[in-house]
């Protein structure tokens, strides 16, 4: 490996094109090829030399990061005037451009309006250097205080759980003892004697100190107690405290036992609390949860598919718990699923196994759980596993809804399943099914649920279009929907949950940096046309609408969209004005839906010459604002 690197070192020389480009930039037009070669070698050599000197300054500056000031100092050593203007502490934002067969990286210097700078309020003054003392070690033992790192880093937890023997294998004693020592510190513990012995199991570290025991007691009591404020604090602590790894086995046992008991007792509230604990544990970045998934996952799955989770299934909102648990499961699939443990596929097979038994005898509750669990795993799973079953499920729902009244509970269950299916399937269908949405077509494809699906799909389409329109060309931050679950204590007393599980709040995922003032929320002028570009893959596909306020009102815009990659033929559909749904009221509106591969959609913005107005109208200020808000004063340091 080292050899390869060295050989590379030997051969790296700046390309001669760069020399030409630089020469041109200072006004030397025709540079001969030999001069270019000679120059590039010389320049490469000098650059390497300067880099080596700059490294010296980095070392003496006690840093790991080479900064621009190091380069400046190295230049000063060589009696060269340092470069002015590169003062950034972090990386230098080089921009890339190509054209005319050339590729360029350049440092973009923006023109700055001085009045802007003058008028902006001053950033906060950066905090002054200060000195803070703490105990790194007391007589050889590192106290667990916030200033010190967590006793065992995640890597070590992982190493302990995945390679427990490594620590004591005689051959690898050296590495092992470093780890051992870093924790115990005091113990030279008669190494010589133990050397010969091969311990098969590492010493278990299950003793908790008195403080930890107290903490554990407090936390668990608060988590399942009645005071909501205390619970929030406890969960917050679980989610952030770095030193919990020793208590992790206790917590996971607590949760799994708790679920087991409370499912039998149908204690919905407690189940919810326990699930929230699971969530908090998963949120804690310092914990290596993999070791305890075997306890946590069954508990979560139980909360998804159990037949009965509460005393009065007709009244209590156990659906919310199922949704929440399903989301947790999806999250853990995402974070923990690897090729070796393959949680996701296990989970899916498990649900499918249940589902295959989903004959009429199966409870609606379990059915709901299965579908919710699958649906949370993403559009791909919905597409392959749920959509094919829509007709069957539809028939079952129909049997309950339209057949003789069996029981209220069944009816409610069927109702929930129906809305769940509609909710999840509509968005997926909207993406994979070409327009137009024909009710009859839907009925033949999806059976009983067809017509409802059709209207949902159309609603989804318009909504997506509207969102995309706002999103277009502005800086977009999508916050991952984070499930939050809160149960009011009174909920136990029995107010019927609303149809859609309202106690789960999923914050809207779009945060717009600057809503465009000119964006019509409801497109009223008839001349406006929309080009909807939807990426064909991915769940959170960004959909963009570009508004053209063109004067040529009548003629529909022919799609002159030069797709850069053009691997996928753009699908251009002209929707007839008389289509059903929301848009039917405005006869002159035309929707052109262009489906493009996701990669093409971005390059499309910059390249298309057909869309001049919309591009220029987008204020670039958003980017500037972002830059400004990162003033150094905003960030204060503290080792907590």
């Amino acid at each position, binding site marked *: 490996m080292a050899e390869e690197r060295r050989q590379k070192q030997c051969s790296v020389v700046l390309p001669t094109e760069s020399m030409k480009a630089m020469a041109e930039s200072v006004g030397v037009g025709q540079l001969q090829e030999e001069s270019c070669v000679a120059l590039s070698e010389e320049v490469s*050599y000098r650059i390497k030399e300067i880099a080596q000197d700059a490294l*010296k300054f980095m070392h*003496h*500056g*006690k840093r790991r990061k080479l900064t621009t000031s190091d380069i400046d*100092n190295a230049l000063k050593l060589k009696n060269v005037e340092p470069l002015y203007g590169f003062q950034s502490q972090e990386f230098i934002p080089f921009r890339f451009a190509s054209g005319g067969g050339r590729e360029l990286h350049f440092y973009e210097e923006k023109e700055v309006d001085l009045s802007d700078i003058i008028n902006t309020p001053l950033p906060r003054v950066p905090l002054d250097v200060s000195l803070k003392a703490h105990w790194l070690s007391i007589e050889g033992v590192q106290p667990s205080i916030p200033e*010190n790192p967590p006793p065992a880093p995640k890597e070590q937890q992982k190493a302990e759980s995945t390679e427990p023997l490594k620590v004591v294998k005689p051959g690898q004693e050296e590495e092992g003892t470093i780890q051992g020592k*870093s924790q115990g510190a005091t113990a030279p513990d008669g190494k010589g004697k133990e050397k010969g012995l091969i311990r098969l199991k590492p010493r278990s570290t299950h003793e908790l100190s008195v403080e930890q025991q107290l903490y554990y007691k407090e936390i668990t009591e608060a988590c399942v107690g009645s005071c909501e404020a205390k619970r929030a604090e406890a969960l917050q602590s679980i989610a952030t405290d770095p030193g919990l790894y020793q208590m992790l086995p206790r917590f996971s046992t607590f949760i799994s036992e708790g679920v087991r008991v409370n499912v039998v007792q149908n204690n919905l509230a407690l189940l919810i609390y326990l699930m929230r604990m699971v969530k908090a544990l998963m949120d804690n970045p310092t914990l290596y949860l993999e070791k305890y998934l075997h306890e946590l996952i069954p508990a979560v799955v139980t909360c998804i598919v159990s037949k009965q989770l509460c005393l009065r299934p007709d009244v209590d909102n156990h659906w919310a718990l199922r949704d929440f648990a399903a989301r947790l499961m999806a999250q853990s699939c995402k974070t923990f699923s690897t090729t070796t443990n393959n949680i996701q596929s296990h989970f899916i097979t498990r649900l499918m196994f249940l589902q295959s038994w989903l004959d009429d005898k199966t409870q609606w509750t379990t059915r709901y759980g299965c579908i919710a669990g699958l649906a949370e795993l993403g559009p791909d799973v919905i597409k392959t596993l749920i959509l094919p079953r829509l007709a069957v499920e539809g028939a079952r729902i129909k049997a309950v809804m339209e057949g003789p009244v069996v029981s209220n509970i069944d009816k409610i269950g069927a109702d929930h399943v129906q809305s769940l299916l509609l909710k999840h399937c509509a968005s997926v269908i909207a993406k994979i099914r070409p327009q137009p949405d024909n009710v009859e077509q839907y009925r033949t494809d999806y059976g009983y649920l067809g017509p409802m699906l059709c209207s949902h799909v159309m609603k989804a389409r318009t909504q997506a279009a509207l969102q995309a329109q706002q999103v277009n060309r502005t800086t977009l931050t999508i916050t991952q929907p984070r499930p939050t679950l809160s149960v009011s204590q009174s909920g136990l007393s029995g107010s019927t949950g609303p149809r859609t599980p309202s106690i789960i709040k999923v914050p809207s995922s779009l945060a717009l940096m600057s809503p465009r003032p000119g964006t019509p929320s409801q497109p009223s002028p008839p001349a406006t046309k929309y080009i909807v570009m939807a990426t064909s893959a991915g769940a959170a596909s960004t959909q963009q609408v570009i508004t053209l306020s063109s004067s040529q009102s009548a003629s529909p815009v022919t799609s002159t969209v030069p797709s850069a990659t053009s691997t996928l033929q753009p699908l251009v559909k002209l929707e007839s004005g008389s289509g059903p749904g929301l848009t039917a009221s405005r006869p002159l509106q035309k929707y052109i839906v262009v489906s493009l591969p996701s990669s093409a959609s971005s390059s499309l913005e910059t390249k298309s010459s057909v869309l001049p107005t919309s591009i220029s109208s987008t204020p670039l200020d958003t980017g500037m604002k972002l830059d400004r808000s990162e003033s150094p004063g905003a960030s204060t340091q503290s080792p907590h």
Partner: protein
Amino acid sequence: MAAVQSGMGEGVEEKDIKTEPASDGFGNNNANDGRLVSTSPGSNAPAASNKPVAGGPPEDQQTLLAVLQFLRKNKLTESVEILRREAGLPEDDLDPNGADSSGAGTGGAAGSVDSDAGDASSLLTRVTVSSSAAAQAPTKAAAGEDQPDVSVVLSAYSQQGDPALYEVYYSSLKRFIETVLDCHRAELSQVFYPLFVHMYLELVYNNHENEAKAFFEKFSGDQECYYEDDLRVLSSLTKKEHMRGNETLLDFRTSKFVLRISRDSYQLLKRHLQERQNNQIWNIIQEHLYIDIFDGMPRSKSQIDAMSGSLAGEAKREANKAKVYYGLLKEPEIELPLDDEDEEAENEEGKPKKKKPKKDSMGSKSKKQDPNAPSQSRIPLPELKDSDKLDKIMYMKEATKRIRLGPDNLPSICFYSFLNAYQGLTAVDFTDDSSLIAGGFADSTVRVWSVTPKKLRKVKSAADLNLIDKESDDVLERIMDEKTASESKILYGHSGPVYGISFSPDRNYLLSSSEDGTVRLWSLQTFTCLVGYKGHNYPVWDTHFSPHGYYFVSGGHDRVARLWATDHYQPLRMFSGHLADITCTRFHPNSNYLATGSSDRTIRLWDVLNGNCVRIFTGHKGPIHALAFSPNGKFLASGATDGRVLLWDIGHGLMVGELKGHTDTIYSLRFSRDGEILASGSMDNTVRLWDAMKAFDDLETDDFTAATGHIHLQDNSQELLLGTYLTKSTPVIHLHFTRRNLLLAAGAYNP
């Protein structure tokens, strides 16, 4: 005079006259500003320190001639006169030489330099020619150079061999070494690296760029991994023009690469090369390598690896033969107002009784002279002031409360984090009594904090001072300006990042060294700059006060360490010999010696008295960034970018231990007050504690094979490691043991 003073007694293997030392002298003079040679006739040291450390009498002569040439060229006739008088060279001594050389008839640099210097420089060329003539007919030496010294140095490469054959030569040697007996293979393999470098440089020098590249690509992978940094420099060097002004290269060229090889192995190599008529390689070995031959068993691979890694090979055995007085100086006798004071102040029954025997034992200890200690007046030391005596008393008091450390009794560590430093903290120091912390920053400021409740106060202004009653008892208290009291003070003055910082032992002064090439002395009474010591023209990487005050040392990018006294604006001594930047400097506890660590991966120990280099320690594989003397003065610990701590026995001049564990540069090393524990702080965010007692004890039971200088290091780092303490995200850049053996650590939090 310099010639007279060459006390080293070098046994030079080959007696050929070389030009390397000459140019070495040149380099030094360039750096040192030749004026200094003549301006300090009062002390013998500057001249002594100017002379290259390694060099026998004939080479010294050459050096002098070279110096003379340089001076003449720069029209410093007065200096020439003085120097010649000092050295006892008759004027006409030079001229016949010059005539001789012109008779030799090669062009060389003689044509290009002005007539003034003609005689001396042509002498140099003649010398060059005579040395290279042994090998092959000298070809065109680069004529018309602006820098005759450089061209002279390089011209030794001008011998032409068939460039295509270099690979053949090298690989045939490689085959030979691979087939020799195992016991010789490791030793002979040492030859590879210097040969490789010199062959590559020859190719480059003779404009065989493509061959050079091919040669490099083919064989660079064979070299030991610890030479990787140098190979990187080498790989970027592909043109003859690049060789000019490349310091690394000049170093390589001017200093002979030192190898230690047993006689048997050497004979084997010699026979092989002579049989094969492999002149190319033989010439390189003759000219550029110094082979230190010893009788006895060949060394093993691990023994060799332990000692190699420096830029110029191992140290010659002779280099470490000089006697070093590493013992401590006798503690001054202090009268005992302290006991009365103590009794009155504390009114404890047990205290005075305890104190008495303690005191007696100390007194008796100080009475018998350590045979290894230098005489008390070897270096003139400042007299103790009353305040110093008070401080000594405080020190002794604290010492009685000191915790006895050991493997079962580890120190507590208090960590001082610099918050909001924005990656700008570059140096830290504590005062000996741990009352103040100073930090040097990349923004050129120096900040001083008080970590005790006692705030920092300035002395009142002159006008206000006049108003004070000078007879009062608390005059020292009255002169302070209460209005200026604060926890920290900022010192402005430098114009570049502050890389080194050091408190004076009496806490009145603070030294700081900076990228701007100056060392500044600050008063901690007025919080102003008192002196800016100029002399280094390049960044000064480190500075350190002598433990007795008054003297301090600085070292930097110009490769010269300077010894200063606070009341002289010019250096008292200059220590030159390192081949790359001096990265850290430390005084020996007895102030008679100082150690410098360098980017050339060696540590040198210098005698303050005469400026001689008395020890060269090789074995590190990266630039050295931390040094620490053990409190008893016997041992030295060093830490480098390779993450290893090496322990050295100063008296024997041997490596005695290697502590592996850190994964990044070690920036700080410190022994506990009694020397039982060594603490190391590193860029990898850890503080590690090592059992120094054990490391040195084990060793004393071993008998040294000091004659050959061989060492057997057992790999016992893990047994010696007593603890590892990880910080959250704070590189540890300074460590300090308080007088009671509490460990203080400091670094900037780096979110």
